[in-house]
């Protein structure tokens, strides 16, 4: 992808604040969603928001886009409120999870349309479109109708349409859903390139591996707040130290008495009743001894895995300790 073009044309990156969300409260009738959410994103930073379904990620995105007004607290994009300032909204580029494009239009025609609708003046549209096509590596496909492109290329056009007006903050919702590994890597590289050029990126995803490999910082949206945020490695070290994650898969669902025995060994249930999760450290019971103890209690262990914890481990721990339904 032509990152050089982007670097030449984008604003000079620095670490100034692009987005500031402070003590944000919002809810639907009878259902509070966001309860004092705080978030800051700086130029060139990739921030990934993780959270269970229904945590309020989509609601937060709509608040950032100015479609909802906060009950209290505020959202500032480049110092302005998106709900009140068109110029603040113009600094946003939204990449919805769906392919939010006109399928019967070519990639170029789509970008021309979205550029115009984002407020790019007629005289600058050609330049803006060429920029977006170049950055996303779509030059050779610009004349093809979107419906004729592969899923990966459609995803690229989806991103190109969000950056055609050169926003300062890009909101990406599950940008690699349904694409193959090559396309996924290409899209991740594209996001890195955009961030490297100075664009701030807020990514919402369920893909923990993607979050870990792509993000400068991640945050977990739980109970209406961004809980536990920071760089992925730092968060994992802080949460787990040198501990390992222990995952036991049983042949059958354990009975009530067996569940108590599992809990006594420091294991917690997961959504799948046959899979139990725990942590292991230097002084923990050896795996062989644990397996023997469980089999003595009448449980057959199909698999026991010990691994370095990742973001999904942290997510699991956070949701388990807070009793959050996933």
């Amino acid at each position: 992808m032509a990152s050089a073009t982007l670097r030449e044309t984008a604003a000079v990156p620095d670490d100034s604040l692009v987005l500031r969300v402070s003590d944000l409260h919002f809810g639907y009738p009878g259902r509070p969603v966001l309860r004092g959410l705080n978030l800051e994103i700086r130029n060139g930073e990739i921030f990934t928001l993780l959270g269970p379904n229904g945590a309020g990620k989509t609601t937060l995105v709509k608040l950032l886009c100015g479609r909802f007004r906060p009950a209290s607290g505020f959202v500032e994009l480049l110092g302005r409120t998106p709900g009140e300032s068109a110029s603040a909204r113009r600094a946003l580029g939204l990449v919805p999870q769906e392919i939010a494009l006109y399928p019967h239009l070519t990639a170029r025609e789509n970008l021309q349309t979205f550029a115009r609708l984002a407020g790019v003046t007629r005289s600058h549209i050609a330049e803006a479109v060429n920029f977006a096509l170049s950055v996303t590596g779509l030059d050779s496909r610009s004349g093809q109708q979107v419906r004729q492109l592969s899923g990966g290329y459609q995803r690229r056009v989806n991103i190109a349409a969000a950056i055609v007006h050169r926003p300062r903050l890009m909101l990406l919702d599950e940008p690699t859903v349904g694409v193959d590994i090559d396309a996924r890597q290409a899209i991740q590289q594209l996001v890195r390139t955009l961030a490297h050029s100075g664009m701030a990126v807020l990514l919402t995803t369920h893909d923990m591996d993607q979050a870990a490999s792509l993000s400068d910082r991640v945050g977990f949206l739980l109970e209406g707040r961004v809980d536990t945020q920071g760089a992925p490695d730092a968060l994992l070290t802080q949460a787990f130290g040198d501990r390992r994650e222990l995952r036991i898969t049983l042949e059958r669902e354990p009975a009530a008495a067996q569940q108590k025995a599992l809990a006594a060994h420091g294991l917690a249930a997961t959504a799948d009743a046959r899979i139990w999760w725990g942590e292991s450290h230097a002084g923990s019971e050896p795996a062989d001894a644990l397996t023997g103890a469980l089999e003595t209690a009448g449980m057959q262990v199909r698999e026991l895995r010990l691994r370095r914890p990742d973001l999904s481990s942290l997510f699991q721990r956070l949701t388990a300790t807070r009793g959050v339904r996933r």
Partner: protein
Amino acid sequence: MILAILRVMWLGLLRDRGALAMAFILPPIIFVIFAAIFAGASGDEMRLRIVIADLVDDASSQALVTALQRDEQLRAHADAAMDEPEVRRRVRMGEADVGVVIQEPLAAPLLEGSARILVIADGGRAVAGPMVAGRLQALIQRELPEVGLTRTVQLVDILLDGYTDEQRRQLTLAMEHADTEQAVEPVPLVAQESLQGQAGSDGAVNYYAGAVAMLFLLFAAMQGAASLIDERQSGVVDRLLIGPGGSSVVVLGKGLFLVIQGVLQIGLIFLVAWLAYGVDLPGNFLPWLMTTLMAALAAAGLALALCVSCSTRQQAQTLSTFFVLILSAVGGSMVPRFMMPPWLQDLGWFTPNAWAIEAYQAVLWRGAPAAELLTAWAVLGGVGLAALGGAVLIAHRLART
């Protein structure tokens, strides 16, 4: 920005051959079919199929059967074996449109027996019965004058309290020597005139050009407006809502496109009406254009207001089909309103179809001045603008949910 949405809609239409055919090819074809049917229904092209049972089989009845078979407006079939049950069977089976049973001598005494001729028509072809009955009257008057003469003589005898013996003797003698071959063309008691429109255009063709135009205008507008739902579901609207134009641009851009598409669509129908049936489009172009603009605006506004309120395409399709069919049926796009009961005719004024059809009739058939059309234009334009405003408000509200 509105033009950007217009361009998207236009390119989408151009690249969807099915939609293109639905929008611009199907309407003129349907119009031609309707025009052929209804122009023919009032002319000489129908050629109803009739079966005849001559149960009397005398000179007069045979002459009548021959006259019916020679009549170019009918396709008459008679054979000696035909009886009334067979005639009824054939009509019921759809093998004939109308059955004719000559069941009494035509010149039988005026006060005796039953009707001389029984005309049997299927309830589903109700209009065919009176048409054949009228045709029979005309044929008897022209081809069998002695039947009419005999009945007149008998009628005078009854009404004037009887003839004297001498008068009766002279009448009988005169009747025997009556020259029924003589070509007599009496001045008709009732004459009929079918008014022609400007440039000699056919009223039925004029009517159905407007009727079909409104039907397709509404369908095409609903189809185009439903793209709002696709865009909402695909996230395109989410993307556009952060732009400076917001939801208004999307709705107004689509509205503008639907109006232009509607004008082109109606234009094609009336172009065919002009070229094939002589509807005077060039002579009334400006009032026609104004009527078309207002009708297209009404259809676009209503379609957008309906579609923007729907959450799924399926819901929009169901509702739009329902509304278009109801509006078209009540508004006269399917059956001329003069054939409806008065209450339904009054109800028709609540539909854009009725206003548009009447306006087209006024423009193209009567050559009405603009002043006469102001009410129709105001109603259509007002409905369109109000519905479009409603659609913008609803879209704005939905953007915040």
